[in-house]
């Protein structure tokens, strides 16, 4: 609670959090107030204002509908990838760091191995091989499965530093098992840290999806902010000056990522008093 109070004192956190929760609310509830449709509702690239606030795309579809769907997809991918990457990374990191010995050695080796192999490359290779069945969920799963390494490395270092603290020895003397110690005595110390990692992983998930969609390997089953950008680019909207085809989408992506970075940076400031002044 005291933590939250401190956080709320930071304007960066307040701005970031309100922006982020704002987009989540819009993504969740906009379809209740706006009839979202993928049908052709106008001519090709109808300009904004002509019955459609943000105009229409090359197939005459309403851009507001596309953006709402895209926003939902991007947040979905971000959370899916973020949850997987954070959970996997935390689990492996906390266990390896606490256990030490050969288990830690193997986990550490695995982590370092997949840190140096660029995850975007793995993402490209897998996406390119799923020519037909490339769904949003699949892409989220792949992103999560390729980016857990950063969380694992970060959490491992923390967990390893904690394991020789006095209260851990006390718990051991009390006869607590590994699992009990990890859950009761190590995880609570790491929670704020894990949460910050989670925030960054959501941002990286959203960015990865947008990037992979931009190069034409995005989900085939739905719209996403990246897919909108790819459509705009491959149909020449950029060169023809059809700004409503890509500006709203780029603004949305940047806004979400910026909001998440703000949250992360402000939390860093609160947890690390040296940065505060």
């Amino acid at each position, binding site marked *: 609670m005291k933590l939250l109070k401190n956080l709320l004192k930071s304007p*960066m956190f307040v701005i970031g959090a309100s922006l982020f929760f704002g987009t989540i609310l819009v993504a969740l509830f906009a379809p209740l107030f706006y009839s979202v449709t993928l049908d052709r509702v106008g001519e090709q690239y109808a300009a904004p204002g002509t019955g459609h606030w943000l105009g229409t795309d090359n197939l005459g579809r309403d851009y507001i509908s596309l953006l709402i769907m895209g926003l939902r997809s991007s947040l979905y991918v971000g959370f899916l990838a973020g949850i997987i990457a954070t959970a996997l990374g935390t689990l492996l990191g906390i266990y390896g760091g606490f256990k030490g010995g050969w288990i830690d050695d193997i986990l550490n080796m695995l982590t370092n*191995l997949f840190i*140096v*192999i*660029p995850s*975007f*490359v*793995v993402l*490209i*290779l*897998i996406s*390119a*091989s*799923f*020519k*037909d*069945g490339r769904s949003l969920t699949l892409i989220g799963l792949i992103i999560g499965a390729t980016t857990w390494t950063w969380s694992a490395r970060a959490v491992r270092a923390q967990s390893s530093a904690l394991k020789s603290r006095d209260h851990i020895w006390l718990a051991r003397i009390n006869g607590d098992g590994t699992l009990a110690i990890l859950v009761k005595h190590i995880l609570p110390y790491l929670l704020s840290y894990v949460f910050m990692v989670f925030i960054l992983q959501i*941002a990286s998930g959203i*960015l990865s999806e*947008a*990037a992979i969609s*931009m*190069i*034409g*390997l995005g989900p085939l089953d739905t719209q996403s902010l990246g897919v909108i*950008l790819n459509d705009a*680019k491959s149909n020449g909207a*950029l*060169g*023809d*000056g059809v*700004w409503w085809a*890509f*500006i709203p989408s*780029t603004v949305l*992506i*940047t806004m979400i*990522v*910026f909001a998440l*970075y*703000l949250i992360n*940076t402000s939390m*860093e400031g609160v947890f690390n008093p*040296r*940065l505060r*002044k």
Partner: protein
Amino acid sequence: MLKQHPTARFILQRAGWYLLTFLVAVTINFFLPRLGTSNPVDIILAKSTGGLSAQAAREKEESYLKEFGLVKLDGHGNILRDTTIRMAKVWDASKQVSVSKPDTLIKPIKASSLDQFFTYVKMSLSGDLGTSFQKYPKKVLDVIVQAVPWTIALQLPTIVFGWIVGNVLGALAAYRRGLFDRVFFPVALLVSSIPFFVFGMLLVYYFAVVLGWFPAMGGYADEIIPSFSFELFGSVAYHYVLPFFSIFLILAGGQAIGMRSMGIYELGTDYIKYAKWLGIKESRVLIYLFRNAMLPQLTGLALSLGTMIGGALITEMIFSYPGLGMAMLSAIQNNDYPMIQGVTLIITTCVLIANFTVDIMIGFLDPRVKAGLQMGGN
């Protein structure tokens, strides 16, 4: 023997580790594209036989099979065939009848995927990345070698300038704090959180389409034939401006943020307080500060030089810049798997080399690691 030479042992150990990582990367590079619903082997076969006579289609198919390592070969590089001789009906034009003759193209023996894998590893290690499928019979490596100079020309100056400018500004913000920092930091944070491709698109739209100041795409004007002429150089420079800034600003912003927090951390340390207390000149203190905050930033520089080849993929696509990104995009659009695999392998290799260099560099630069080495630890 190695016990007496901790440095040599350290280097060998790291080299061994990176070799292992490279092998894992090659394995991933081979198996991942074959994992999905449409594997490259089928696509290659389906494409290779369209619109040709039976005989020609067969020859083409076999040359593909051989090119892409899908059949077993004997010691001389000839396709191993099923040895049971089959008779085939062949039309004899001079006698106007069909006669039975032994089939000269008896079915080749297909290589198992494990054999294919070993062929692939052997080829990769000898620098042969196979044949491009889309630009057949061009070699993948030739296409890459043509594209890489553009990518490096775009990335290397951008990374180096962005790094220098970002670090200087970050250090200043950390040292000055106050108003400069309060304005600078949120701006840097915003700029660095703009994705490269978003920023690139906005630049193209505003400066190329709306204002018409700069060309929207390409590495040089279409009508110029690439040669070492003054005209080409001017055109290249003109086309260079937008892609350069699309990366430069974001990179500088990111570096500045990193340097700022390193600087603030160092400012709180005792040696800086002591130096200030001694009344050493401010510029002198700043130099001490800079030097100590530099190590992680140097590591970052080396790492971003490693990701250089892969980093600009999307920027290049947006600007239709003739580097690796465009090669990759056209490979993706045409299901050119050998090309995709070739580019990803090059990207991974560069990243591994950069990481290896950083490891060794830290071993020599970081006094803590160095001390550990000299004491004979690992």
